[in-house]
């Protein structure tokens, strides 16, 4: 079949003929058997191509399907991995918290078990100065456990009146008020001065401050010093705590 006739048949079968052209072609079809046979053969061929086209389209959709399913699966895997990462992080956090709580719990128990504010009394004089009154008031507040107010009174005293006993009371008051660095610094004054009466007390309360503020190593060093000194303040307790911390 000539190319021209094939093109005409294609135009007819693909619906690409203008109305006049179509009318003329259909008239020819009625008269020309060869043309009618050509159209029939071509129609069959186009049906084959349709099948081929359907198959190719199906192949394309299948390719998209494979790729999309892989992506969906990867996304699901990523979501699972992300979930597992979060779960692992939470688990790690819980585990870490558990061990932290476990490691802190004994210290908290140690502090509660072994800590006791030192009983200090600041006697009154009948005809005292105003500073004496302040000191008496501070002593009373300290004895009653009003440490914040006691500190206000202690700190109102002139430097000339501050002695080792007052510094010990101030150190303990700072500890009780949660002002740990002030407690450490104030008690350190007694240690540095090697106060014959209160140096051991100062070491003990510094150790208590470190325990309270979770500074295990610093507490251990002080407790070891206390345990090593003969007849030091709370020597036995220091040894017990060291055993517990081990």
């Amino acid at each position, binding site marked *: 079949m000539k190319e021209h006739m094939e093109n005409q048949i294609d135009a007819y079968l*693909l619906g690409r003929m203008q109305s006049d052209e179509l009318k003329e072609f259909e008239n020819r079809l009625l008269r020309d058997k060869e043309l009618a046979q050509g159209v029939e053969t071509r129609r069959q061929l186009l049906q084959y191509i349709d*099948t*081929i*086209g*359907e*198959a190719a389209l*199906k192949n394309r*959709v299948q390719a*998209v399907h494979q790729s999309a*399913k892989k992506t969906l699966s990867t996304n699901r895997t990523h979501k699972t991995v992300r979930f597992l990462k979060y779960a692992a992080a939470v688990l790690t956090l819980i585990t870490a918290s558990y061990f932290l709580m476990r490691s802190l719990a004994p210290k908290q128990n140690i502090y509660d078990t072994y800590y006791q504010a030192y009983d200090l009394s600041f006697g009154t004089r009948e005809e005292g100065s105003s500073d004496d009154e302040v000191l008496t008031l501070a002593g009373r507040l300290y004895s009653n456990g009003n440490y914040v107010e006691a500190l206000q009174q202690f700190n109102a005293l002139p430097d000339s009146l501050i002695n080792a006993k007052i510094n010990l009371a101030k150190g303990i008051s700072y500890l009780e008020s949660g002002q740990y660095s002030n407690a450490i610094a104030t008690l350190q004054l007694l240690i540095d001065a090697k106060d014959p009466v209160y140096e051991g007390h100062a070491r003990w309360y510094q150790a208590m401050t470190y325990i309270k503020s979770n500074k295990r190593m610093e507490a251990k060093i002080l407790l070891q010093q206390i345990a090593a000194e003969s007849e030091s303040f709370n020597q036995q307790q220091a040894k017990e705590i060291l055993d517990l911390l081990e």
Partner: protein
Amino acid sequence: MDRLSDDLLIEKLKSTVYTDNDEAMSFLYKVMYRKVAYFIQKNKGTEQDADDIFQDALIALYKLSKADRLQSVNNVQAYFFSICKNLWYKTLKKNQKITGLTEEHHLLPEVEVPMQAILSKEKNQLLNQLLGNLGEQCKQILIHYYYERLKMKEIKKLMNFSSEQVTKNKKFACMKKLKEIINANPSLEALLK
């Protein structure tokens, strides 16, 4: 992949560029596959059934877009889901898993279900094997011209031919080659009928 509006989705489905079609189909997979799979699995189907129905529905939607029959659709995703449901109900009925159609089924859009036109995997493999001699370029020219009804100008552009005349000549030669292959393989003729 960014979210596609209905207009853009239809435009990409209609496009003569295959990568545009693939993008639209991939988008539908992303947003619709789980919903369709859930529906089918809740209605006596399997994941494989869901895969098959989804693909058939994609082909149906693709053809509707090519025939300009999606312009009046308000929500393409909802419409696509209806096609999936319709195809699944028909499959169930065909397999006699349901005795009657539901009320909802009558409300679903009637689409040309491509299942009959689609070859089984085995037949498809045989067809590809026999048409291997035709060559990929010839196969594509014939599909573009006769199946997709593209114009010579569009085919020339898509396939990077130097002129429309060259494209016409190629098409003529490919058609001749296809006739020879079919005449030489009576089994292929029977398969394609």
